[in-house]
């Protein structure tokens, strides 16, 4: 197993996101170390997904920057950007497979785009990637012919096509049944252990947090930023912050008492 070391792979420095006058979060800074699984937590509307989209360069930051392997994700340098894109993989919430292509074509696409391998070799790698996510044999299926859990796994195979050093997950177990959800967690842990991939996961599924996270980061809407950071069990047991404890104990913050 590859244990995470302290080399920072991702550095988020003073990141501020706002839509118009609406400030989502302000001056957020943290690092993700090599081989680490970092889980970003928080209630709905706290800006988890916005943070993720900033980290993968889909949104331009209002202020601050995100560095992955030392490269700014919003760099204008085409060659650097290309190298960066090969270095990261993203699993979107619904898998985001291209509906008109088979699973094999979906996984092969980034390999064809970024390498000059022969079709036979690409086919071999596609088989291996689909095997890694337990979809061996499903090469010729279209995304519309497989279940939601399988779509996510196929999306993961495509995200891993180029063996990226960093994988981002947006709600990997949202919409999955409990068993499939645990399978997804195990897959994530297996890939992290086997390939040593650094992972950033946005989720609000408490079970999977304790199962997979090396470290969690809790965002809060009111605080417009990070309110806690650390080992999930530690935070749950020892955090002095009631917002953190309430989050882990699934207690809503301010609810009027109802008399029944």
């Amino acid at each position, binding site marked *: 197993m*590859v244990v995470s070391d302290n080399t920072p792979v991702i550095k988020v420095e003073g990141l501020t996101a706002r839509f118009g006058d609406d400030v989502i979060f302000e001056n957020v800074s943290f690092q993700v170390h090599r081989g680490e699984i970092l889980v970003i937590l928080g209630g709905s509307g706290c800006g988890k997904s916005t943070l993720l989209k900033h980290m993968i360069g889909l949104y331009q930051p209002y202020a601050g920057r995100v560095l992955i392997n030392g490269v700014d994700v919003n760099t204008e340098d085409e060659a650097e950007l290309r190298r960066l894109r090969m270095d990261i993989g993203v699993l979107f919430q619904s898998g985001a497979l291209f509906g008109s292509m088979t699973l094999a074509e979906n996984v092969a696409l980034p390999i064809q785009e970024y390498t000059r391998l022969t079709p036979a070799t690409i086919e071999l790698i596609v088989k291996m990637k689909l095997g890694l996510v337990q979809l061996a044999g499903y090469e010729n299926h279209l995304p519309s012919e497989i279940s939601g859990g399988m779509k996510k796994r196929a999306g993961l195979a495509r995200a891993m096509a180029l063996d990226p050093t960093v994988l981002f997950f947006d709600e990997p177990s949202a919409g999955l049944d409990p068993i499939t959800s645990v399978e997804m967690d195990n897959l994530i842990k297996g890939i992290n252990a086997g390939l040593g991939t650094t992972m950033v996961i946005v989720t609000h599924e408490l079970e999977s947090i304790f199962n997979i996270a090396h470290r969690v980061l809790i965002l809060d809407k009111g605080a417009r930023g990070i309110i806690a950071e650390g080992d999930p069990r530690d935070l749950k047991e020892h955090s002095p912050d009631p917002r953190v404890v309430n989050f882990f104990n699934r207690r809503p913050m301010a609810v009027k008492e109802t008399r029944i």
Partner: protein
Amino acid sequence: MTKTAAPRRDYSIKVGGEKGEAAVFFSGRLALENLEDLREEIRGLLGEMSPAGLSVDLAGVEYLDSAGAVALLEMEEEARARALPVTFINMTPEVRGILGLIDPEDLKIPPLISERDTSLLEQIGEVSLRLLADLIQMLTFLGELLLSLFYSLLHPRGVRWDEVFFYLKRAGVDGLPIVGLISVLLGLIIAFMSSLQLKQFGANIYVASLLGIAMVKELGPIMTAILVAGRSGSAYAAEIGTMMVNEEVDAMVTMGFDPVRFLAVPKVLATVIAVPLLTLYADLFGILGGLIVGVWSLDLTVFTYITETQRSLDLFDLISSLIKAAVFGVLIAGIGCQRGFQVRGGAQSVGAATTSAVVAAIFLIIVTDSAFALVLHYIQ
């Protein structure tokens, strides 16, 4: 087409060993970018050797990714096929982790469904069956639509009039500029082209009759219907198709709404009202185009031109043409909605439905127009 790997040698393979045992030492980067060379070199290596055993030393491997691991596992497989026992030695925990992650058996599982070739006969059969199914579906939908329209006629309060007015604006009002422009141009062209011929016989005045009859009886309704099919029929198909993809239509059914009554009826009603009105408007603009040519280049007065147009047309022509336009309206909106409801899957299916809505609508417009021409000829 074969692509060759870029010549990047950032790995090396050395061969050694003693007493009939061969040892292969790997070092450097065993990764996706040099996979092509790596596989070839390993294949060549195994072809040359015939030792009693093979040990693969991975101590020098600096970087191994899953693609590099596949090459090593392939090597193991190949050696085993030659009855050559292989042992991997000096593996770092990282290398062991990656090799452990990949199951060589996965690489041998054949695809569950294979794309098969179909013969010409099979293809003809498939297409015929699809056409038949399409026809049945179209008729079923037409039945549903007529029932829903009939129901709406009996219960006019149940119709979503807000929606009807919304689509009336979309299909009708928003289409005014383009329908007007095209009709004027059409009128200009026809009047100009026919005047070139008729001038030779001194029959200038008949340009007005020719254009009046052509616009009101045929070109007005057909041009308008084709424009509405392109503008609104496609929009209906895309709108309902996207709702199908987003499960909005399913939600409607589970809530007990009839999607045809809820989604199709307002669109059909709006289009049935809009197309005849647009046709009337197109007729006027077409005649205006002819008038411009008549006054400018044929020395006709506005009064003569209009009187001549009036004389060549009667009320029957106008009303039959408006009825025809209303039928075109039902066809356009009906086909648009039906194609939308046929959408299954994703974005590509929505695109196909939109295209097919326009093509099918134009085809049916022409077919219906021929039928009208025959029927009107005999009843007039």
